[in-house]
C-alpha cells in the first residue's frame, strides 16, 4: 500500500465517494446481515429516522460518516446480525447500529487508495431522537445516500472537511 498518494486519491476521487460509500454499506449488510440494500426511488422524511450512529474521521480525511434509520430498522439490524427474533434483539439495537456504522466507515476508507494509514476512525456514537441538529467542522456539504433495508428507509451520509 502506498502512503504517498492520499492527497491525489482524495482529490481526484471525491466525486466517486457516494457510490463507494453505497458499495461499502451494501457489502456490510450483505456479509454481516445477509441483506441486500437497494437504492430508494425517493428521498425519505428524515424526521421518521429517529436512530442515528456517527463515526468520526480524522487525519487525511476529516469529518463524519453517519447512518440514520427508524427504531424498527435498528432492531431488525440487530436481529439479523445475531440471528434472533427482533423482540429478542431489541436491547442490542444500539450496539448493532453503532457497529454497522463503524464497519461501513472502515470499509469505505479501505476503498480509497492511500487512506488506510492516513485516516483514523472514532468509536461510534449512537443518538436516539429526531429533533436535533448535528454541526461538524466539515464544510464540504453533506452527501446523503437513500437506501432501503428490507423495505425500510436507511440514510448513509458523509460529510468531510475540504
Amino acid at each position, binding site marked *: 500500500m502506498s502512503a504517498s498518494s492520499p492527497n491525489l486519491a482524495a482529490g481526484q476521487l471525491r466525486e466517486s465517494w457516494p457510490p463507494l460509500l453505497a458499495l461499502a454499506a451494501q457489502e456490510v449488510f450483505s456479509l454481516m446481515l445477509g441483506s441486500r440494500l437497494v437504492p430508494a426511488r425517493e428521498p425519505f422524511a428524515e424526521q421518521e429516522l429517529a436512530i442515528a450512529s456517527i463515526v468520526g474521521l480524522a487525519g487525511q480525511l476529516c469529518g463524519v460518516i453517519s447512518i440514520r434509520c427508524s427504531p424498527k430498522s435498528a432492531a431488525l439490524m440487530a436481529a439479523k446480525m445475531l440471528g434472533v427474533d427482533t423482540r429478542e434483539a431489541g436491547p442490542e439495537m444500539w450496539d448493532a447500529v453503532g457497529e454497522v456504522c463503524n464497519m461501513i466507515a*472502515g470499509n469505505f476508507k479501505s476503498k480509497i487508495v492511500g487512506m488506510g494509514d492516513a485516516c483514523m476512525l472514532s468509536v461510534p456514537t449512537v443518538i436516539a431522537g429526531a429533533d436535533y441538529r448535528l454541526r461538524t467542522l466539515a464544510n464540504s456539504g453533506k452527501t446523503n445516500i437513500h437506501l432501503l433495508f428490507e423495505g425500510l428507509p436507511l440514510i448513509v451520509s458523509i460529510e468531510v472537511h475540504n
Partner: protein
Amino acid sequence: MDNMRVLIVDDSSVMRKIVARSLRQAGLNIAQVLEAGNGAEALVVLQQGKVDLVLCDINMPVMDGLEFVKQLSGVENAKGVPVVMITTEGSEDHVVQALSAGACGYIRKPFTPDQVKEHVLPALAGNL
C-alpha cells in the same frame, strides 16, 4: 483442539456474539467463550485463567487492541496463546503494529464465517 476456551475482546457486544457464532460455524469445539469489552478487561480475564485463543478488536475505549497485545507479553497465562485481530481498521500501519506486538493473524470487518475460519485455523495449528 477440543473443549477450547476462547477470549473475545470487542467493545461491541453484538460483535462478540457474531465472532463466537462464526467460530462455532468454523467447526471449532468451543467449551467456553469469555468476553471482554476492552483490553484492560481482557488482561483481567487472562490473569484469572488460561485460554486457547484470543480474538481482539483494535479500536476500543480504555485500552485499545494494540496496547493489549503489547501488554500480553507480561501475562503468564497468555504465553503461547494465538491472538487474531478482528477490526475495521485495515491500515497497513495497524497490521504491522499488531503483528510486531505478537498477533498472529488479522481479519478485517465485515467478514464471513469462512474468512474467520481461514485465519483462525492456521493460528491454532501453529499453537498445537
